[in-house]
């Protein structure tokens, strides 16, 4: 009976489907699902030296992690960075998209393309430029501040300013993406809505607040979620610009995980940290599903 149903399955499209899916499925299992399960398992083992065998420790790594001030500091910094970059790039993106959506603007596609350039620029290159832009003595930022009579801080060597400096790069690379998504959402709003509110005597600002902002809410939810996820996983520019310093003031989760697992070879606590990032990202995703409904990923 089982044999019969297998035969029927193969005679339909099942056989072809199997052949068509096999290569991608094998790769996904080997390089995604297996490592995922393996990370969950490793997080339960103490493994501080690649030369010796891992020892089962139950939730020991998680306890080590959650009683470690450095980990809490890192979480705090990562959240600060994440919320700062996400919030500012979303606000900037919405304002710019709204301006680009106005009738009669010259060169609309030129502006849109220009704002998007940073998003495709390599992170390491951008980070190197930032190091020099924010150099305390000859950097352009402090040069400009000197022109108006302000002595700028020692940006990247100051534990107060290093994180905001990193955030400026994050915002610079991100807001072009929010512009494009918001522009799409704004273009979908029927023209009548605006014309009606105009007839009612609403100002441009009022129509922005009462029509544009609420009607792009689904796009906002999507951008918040994607922004939180992407920014939470920041690594490249932090490694190049500060390496997590000064005094741990920019030690985001990615840097701490890299140090723990690949410099100190503590694969167990590193994996526990990896599981924590998975949970945080899952929480952000669930948040999106709760707000816009699960259908959004398969809406078509």
């Amino acid at each position, binding site marked *: 009976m089982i044999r019969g149903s297998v035969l029927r399955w193969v005679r*339909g499209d099942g056989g072809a489907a199997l052949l068509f899916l096999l290569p991608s499925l094998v790769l996904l299992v080997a390089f995604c699902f297996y490592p995922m399960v393996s990370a969950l398992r490793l997080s339960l083992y103490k493994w501080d030296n690649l030369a010796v065998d891992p020892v089962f420790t139950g939730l020991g790594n998680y306890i080590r992690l959650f009683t470690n001030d450095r980990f809490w500091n890192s979480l705090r910094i990562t959240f600060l960075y994440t919320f700062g970059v996400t919030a500012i790039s979303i606000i900037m993106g919405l304002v710019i998209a709204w301006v680009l959506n106005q009738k009669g603007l010259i060169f609309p596609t030129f502006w849109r393309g220009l704002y998007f350039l940073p998003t495709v620029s390599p992170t390491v290159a951008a980070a190197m430029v930032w190091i020099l832009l924010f150099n305390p003595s000859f950097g352009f930022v402090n040069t400009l501040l000197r022109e108006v009579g302000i002595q700028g801080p020692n940006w990247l060597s100051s534990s107060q300013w290093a994180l905001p400096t990193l955030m400026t790069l994050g915002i610079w690379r991100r807001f072009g993406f929010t512009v494009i998504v918001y522009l799409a959402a704004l273009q979908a709003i029927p023209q009548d809505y605006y014309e009606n509110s105009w007839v009612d005597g609403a100002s441009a600002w009022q129509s922005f607040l009462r029509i544009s902002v609420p009607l792009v809410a689904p796009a906002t939810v999507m951008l918040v979620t994607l922004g939180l996820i992407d920014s939470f996983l920041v690594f490249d520019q932090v490694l190049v610009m500060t390496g997590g310093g000064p005094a741990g003031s920019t030690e985001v*989760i990615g840097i701490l995980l890299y140090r723990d697992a690949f410099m100190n070879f503590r694969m167990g606590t590193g994996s526990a940290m990896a599981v924590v990032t998975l949970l945080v990202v899952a929480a952000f995703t669930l948040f999106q599903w709760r707000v816009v409904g699960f259908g959004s990923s398969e809406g078509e």
Partner: protein
Amino acid sequence: MGTHVLHPLQQPALKRSSILFAGRKKVFTNLGLLIVLVPVALLVITPYLWMVTGSLKERGHFSEPPYLFPSTFDFSNYQKAWEGAPFARYFLNTAGVAAAVVLSRIVLGGMAAYAFAILKFRGRDLLFFLYLSTMMIPFYAILIPLFLLIRDLNWINSYQALIVPRMVDAFGILLLRQAFIGVPRDYLDAARVDGASHWHTLWRIVMPMCKPTALTVAIFSFLFVWNDFLWPFLVANDTDMRLIQTGLQAFSGRYLTEWTYWMAGTIMATIPPILFFLLAQKQFISGLARSGIKG
């Protein structure tokens, strides 16, 4: 709910609302809008200007003058940077890895998308959901076991390490599947009547009709490889194996205070993805609008 809001971007024409400044002269409209647009545009291009100007200064004189526009034009920095690190090798490595990743994401992704969009078999939806679920796994979550796996395979410092784990990407499969679903049933039925195999139908009929989507997947994959850093940094950081970003990072450490060389290097790394974006802007932006459904 989220999807139909994002869709109109696929039509490149910009429709703009007319309420603001209605009835006034176009000049004033633009003046008002440009007051917002120009300062932000300056913020966007300042780093690029700084990069260009820095790369044209004389060696050792990066700080003079500390302004945005070039007053000297010393092109020897480019030559020195090019000779100071095996940039040619980095470019070739990156181009080769990108080509392999793009090709496999089109071929293997196309096959998977065909199965999910056109073939009918039991367990299809469940399997598709399984594929989609990989998009929610952050790379950090699998990083350590993936590294250990590559190490056990003896793939550290090999092209396999850079290519094989990147060969399939669920988001590309999702985009291709959505496009394949739109292919009219008549074409598929006609192919079947002619006795065409599924393989033939996929590559001769379905994929050619979905070229824009395939191009979008190719562009995303290329930019992904070009801007990738953490993974190549961990598994292939020997001089000969570096990609452009890891190469640039090593270069910046080796020439710690040679800032004119730095800027020449960053320009060399930044120009290809920007050119790529400018050439395929329309595809790219419509693809991004669709990426709104990612998540």
